[in-house]
């Protein structure tokens, strides 16, 4: 979707503010919001792509102005309301309906296990890769509705395949609850091909799925 979250290359933003850069959490509220978000998601059936897409659907001013983990928490809450794990009425009233208590939240032991367990997004490919390292590829010039991971600044752009990463789950499908493996490539784009004012020989690398490219 075309949304304010797609920030790469957008202009008008000022200097990078390095405040609180050496603290893991910049405030107590930040730490609590992070923990609430990850603990409430727990082992529930909220796929990562649906989480990202739900965040993308925040009110745009909220997305651009609310703190990062505060956004995670609001997103988790929106997913829980959507899935019927809590009701909007309960959230508005601040009172849980005692008859619909959730029986089995994530426990501290589950947390310790999750912290040691990387998630593998690679799957067996169902087709041969269409592109090889060194190939020239061109990305789709249109933005699609729904969730997708081709940033606007790299649409309709020509780049070179730097690496083939095997088949990974396609986020566009994941945000619709489907598990679709698709070949994933790291593609290098000359910065001067993406942004007209660039004068140096810099390269921007993106990890892009096969369906993001125009077939020749």
């Amino acid at each position, binding site marked *: 979707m075309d949304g304010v*979250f797609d*920030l*790469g290359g957008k*202009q008008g*933003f*000022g200097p*990078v503010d390095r405040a*609180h*850069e*050496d603290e*893991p*959490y*910049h*405030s107590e509220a930040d730490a609590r*919001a*992070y*923990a*609430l978000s*990850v*603990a*409430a998601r*727990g082992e529930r*059936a909220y796929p990562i792509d649906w989480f990202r*897409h*739900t965040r993308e*659907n925040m*009110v745009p001013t*909220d997305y651009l102005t609310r703190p*990062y983990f505060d956004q995670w928490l609001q997103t988790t809450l*929106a997913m829980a*309301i*959507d899935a019927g*794990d809590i009701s909007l009425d309960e959230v508005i009233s601040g*009172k*849980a*309906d005692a008859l619909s208590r959730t029986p089995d*939240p*994530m*426990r*501290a032991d589950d947390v310790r296990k999750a*912290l040691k*367990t*990387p*998630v593998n*997004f*690679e799957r067996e490919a169902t087709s041969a890769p269409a592109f090889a390292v060194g190939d020239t590829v061109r990305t789709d010039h249109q933005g699609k*509705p729904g969730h997708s991971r*081709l*940033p606007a600044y790299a649409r309709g752009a020509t780049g070179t395949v730097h690496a083939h*990463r095997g088949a*990974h789950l396609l986020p566009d499908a994941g945000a619709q609850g489907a598990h679709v493996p698709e070949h*994933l490539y790291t593609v290098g784009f000359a910065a001067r091909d*993406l942004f007209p004012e660039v004068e*140096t*020989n*810099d*390269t921007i*690398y993106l*990890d*892009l799925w096969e369906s993001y490219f125009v077939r020749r």
Partner: protein
Amino acid sequence: MEPSYDSAKVAEIHRHLHSHLPSEPALRVKALESLLVEKGLVDPAALDAWIEAYTEEIGPKRGAMVVARAWTDPDFKARLLADAGAAVDEMGFAGQASGHLQAVENTDAVHNLVVCTLCSCYPFAILGMAPPWYKANEYRARAVRDPRGVLAEFGVALEPEIAVRVWDSTAELRYMVVPQRPAGTEGFSVEALAALVTRNAMIGTDRDLAAGGA
């Protein structure tokens, strides 16, 4: 229960939350913590476990140990550059977002910089919590379009001949930069070398590490 996967529905829910939740972040989080605990959606002990993990156990010291080992152990460095996820697992650091980790190496001719323009993806298991600037609109917007301007704000002045490689983490791959070993550190122990590696150097907003520490 199961999500609807309906974009319009969650957008509407967000509009309700925008209107009804306390705007002030600390008040909002306090209200939601009470509610979610009362509802049974979260266990307070799990909240403490998440917060403590990234306060006490998991942080950029892990990444610094990985870099220091790569500087001193050529076989490990080769494994790290070939499959960083497996290499950090060897060191006991596998965890959140380390499964598809990639290590990219700075050289005299190349400087690497990592960003996630679409959300704020970050290799938590290796670098801990991302600094606020990494998640901020300014960094996400500018790192791909004006990386040299961003680097200058961090005190990194790059000669035009040094090529910048920006890695925009648009998939589940996560990137860490292996900075160059500073001169004058021959004979340093791995521990002493690790103490020289800054978190920002592993994101790419720091370049010339000092033998005496920053």
